[in-house]
């Protein structure tokens, strides 16, 4: 099995479940956190013995709201991570809700070796924050960025959402400008997606909420592309931007189709088995079930799926087209590329999209005449 150098830890607890969220997260189980952290630490230790994992190049603690954990709880987890082997220059990310980003906490995170903070800003427009059911204000989100920066974080991501009902282009740009002005290092800007099974999904289905049409969502997207480019950000994935040298190494490893281990309730893992087969497996979703499994010394995997060579290639391509750097052209892909070129389906090699990809962009722009033939 290919050695694993990326680790994801899932913390599925939140103070409030935002109505659009379809992640594996729970709002009323905070009482379970101590037991859960124990179990998670246990799983990391057990996996270390089972799998060829480490030294780790990236660690990502996501959720849920992992910033709810105490310093001691985070310390326990990171101690277990270090036992696997953590490279000196590893990227260690913690996802944080703006409400939890206090000077005291931030100091603790830095002391524990967390060197990248991903803050769930989402929006700075009061109407949007209310609509999204975020419990923090725009001011608090800005404060969170400043606090982290002042304490010494040099790699801060902001999560943003565009295409939110009630936010027009100027509102969206205001949010974006402010976040850029705060000196953010990385931005993930996602279109608000209506997922089935969420309260937003229900509201859209029953007609209570009307989502903005595709053209106006796209208008906000392209405006962000232009603005961030002008501000010196590198657009490296379809919805992700970074200041030079600040791309998210953990996510890039996933997107470059490199194996990773996921620990925690509902966490997904991807392994490359020796026969060239790709395996995806995922843990039981519920925190209670997860804790029980680990306590009984069992593997937390709920199910697994082995992907054939072709399917894995398809997946890699599906993810790869979202990257401005294109799909990797090494390993298995070399063969496929040669075949494609030989059969005349691929004219030259896949090239990174030029940073100013005017042709494709103009065709996608609603406001400019060239879209209407």
């Amino acid at each position, binding site marked *: 099995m290919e050695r694993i150098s990326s680790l994801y830890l899932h913390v599925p607890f939140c103070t409030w479940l935002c109505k659009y969220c379809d992640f594996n997260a729970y709002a009323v189980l905070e009482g379970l956190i101590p037991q859960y952290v124990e179990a998670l630490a246990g799983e990391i230790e057990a996996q270390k013995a089972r799998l060829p994992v480490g030294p780790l190049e990236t660690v990502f603690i996501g959720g849920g709201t992992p910033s709810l954990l105490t310093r001691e709880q985070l310390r326990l987890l990171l101690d277990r991570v270090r036992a696997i082997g953590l490279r000196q220059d590893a990227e260690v990310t913690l996802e944080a809700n703006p409400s939890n980003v206090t000077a005291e906490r931030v100091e603790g995170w830095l002391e524990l070796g967390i060197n990248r903070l991903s803050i769930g800003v989402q929006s700075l427009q009061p109407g949007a924050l209310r609509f999204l059911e975020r419990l923090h204000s725009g001011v608090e989100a800005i404060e969170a960025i400043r606090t982290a920066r002042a304490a010494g974080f040099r790699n801060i991501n902001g999560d943003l959402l565009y295409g939110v009902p009630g936010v027009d282009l100027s509102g969206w740009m205001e949010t974006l400008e402010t976040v850029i002005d705060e000196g953010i290092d990385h931005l993930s800007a996602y279109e608000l997606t209506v997922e089935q099974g969420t309260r937003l999904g229900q509201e859209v289905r029953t007609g209570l909420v009307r989502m903005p049409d595709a053209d106006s969502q*796209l208008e906000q997207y392209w405006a962000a592309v232009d603005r961030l480019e002008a501000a010196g950000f590198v657009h490296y994935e379809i919805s992700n931007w970074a200041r030079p040298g600040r791309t998210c190494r953990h996510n890039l490893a996933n997107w470059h189709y490199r194996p990773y281990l996921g620990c925690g309730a509902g*966490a997904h893992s991807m392994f490359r088995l020796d026969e060239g087969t790709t395996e995806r497996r995922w843990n039981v979703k519920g925190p209670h079930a997860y804790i029980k499994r680990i306590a009984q010394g069992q593997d937390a995997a709920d199910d697994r799926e082995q992907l054939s060579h072709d399917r894995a290639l398809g997946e890699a391509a599906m993810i790869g087209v979202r990257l401005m750097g294109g799909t990797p052209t090494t390993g298995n892909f070399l063969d496929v590329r040669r075949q494609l070129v030989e059969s005349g389906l691929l004219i030259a090699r896949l090239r990174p999209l030029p940073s100013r990809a005017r042709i494709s962009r103009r065709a996608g722009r609603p406001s400019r005449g060239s879209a209407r033939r």
Partner: protein
Amino acid sequence: MSRALAACDGAVLVVDASQGIEAQTIANVHQALDHKLKIVPVVNKIDLPQANPELVREEIEKVIGLPAESVIFASARQGIGTKEILEAVVREVPPPTGDREAPLRALIFDAKFDAYRGVVTYVRVLEGTLRKGVRILMMQTGKSFEVDEVGIFRPERTVIEDLSAGEVGYLIANIRNVRDSRVGDTVTDAARPAATPLPGYRHVTPMVFAGLFPTDTEQYQQLKEALEKLQLNDAALVYEPETSAALGFGFRCGFLGLLHMEIVQERLEREFNLTLLGTAPTVEYRVKLRNGEEVPVDNPDHLPDPAEIESISEPMVTATIVVPSAYVGNMMELSQERRGQFLNMEYEPGDRVLITYRMPLAEIIHDYYDQLKSRSKGYASLDYELVGFEEASLVKLDVLVGGSPVDALSMIVERSKAQQQGRRLTEKLKTLIPRQLFEVPIQAAIGGKIVARETVPAMRKDVTAKCYGGDVTRKRKLLEKQKEGKKRLKRVGNVEIPQEAFMAVLSLD
């Protein structure tokens, strides 16, 4: 309704003291009178604050022609009038006249399927006696069975010794196949069969037709079995296999009316757990060809080439609308828009007006009832009756999606309205067909000539959502599913057409 009426000698007519007489009340009374039933009129719910029993009693005499003094006031909830009703039944309804000793003749008026006992056949014995152990013969199908159990309804099934002339009950005889116990058939004694079967039921003719297709092609067999089971106690439901280039294999079904169609579709989906795609309902046209032949057409797509057509006739109905006088104008306006010919208008007690129109059935099934309700704030009631066929100037309107004709979207429309209908239909479809990866033209055509066109713009974006660990698996599965789906949808020119689009033709106003 008609089947149950054939099994009785009398009927209790229950009219709501707060609602008064509705169009369906009149229709049902006429049916009961056709079966020569003795009618006991009752005004129920007289305890309601908004009840006006005196007025309703007057209405019964005026509209239905039953003497006002025979009307019984009742409140089932408070037990008022129950005794009077039972006494009226005993006094008014004639006793059965059949001979208990004659050869057995029992009319099957309903049947149910019981998973443990097989078919439970509901019968009315008109002559002779039916008892356990007897070998019976179904006179139409010629099938023979041994009776396991006979009983009556009180109202749950209760076993008794025998059912004799005049009695209504059920029989269980290890009948496995629902088709062996046909509603309308006559049950007789195999050892001493009756000379002639009972007249049974007038064959009910379906008036509204629609295609039903399983959205999952693997459910075809299940749909077939479900229709068989439904037909067991629903003789009015007819169906035959149909193949649509757009929708695959399904069934063309005939229904008594729109309500019947909705009920059947609802039952298929709920009781049999099927997911169906129904095409817009149409009526049955009679097409006279130039070679003198006359063919029935219940599917717009099957309309012969216009060059071969001499004339087309469509079914006409007499529509009876009962409505408060304030809405008479609205009702008349609506009916005129729908090619209605005014026949009659009568003012009844209680500010009620009875309006009759002669109009094409095709107009009625195109959301006429919904319009009737919405333009009368829900007060109007409607009943209609087929009165014959009438020649009309009609053409077939075809719809092309992405350049390919979609047979299931074709409709037959009045020539003078065709172009306008085509425009409305394409506009409507534009809002209902989701964006694809390419532009999709929607065209309406009459005999090969395009009369309207709209374009669904291409999809602009599809990949901006997040894509982390678990999302990858989910996205790949979605893509694989879409790929599967596309294979099936190739026949519709690569365009996915949702159910609502097939119903769009119903509400073009």
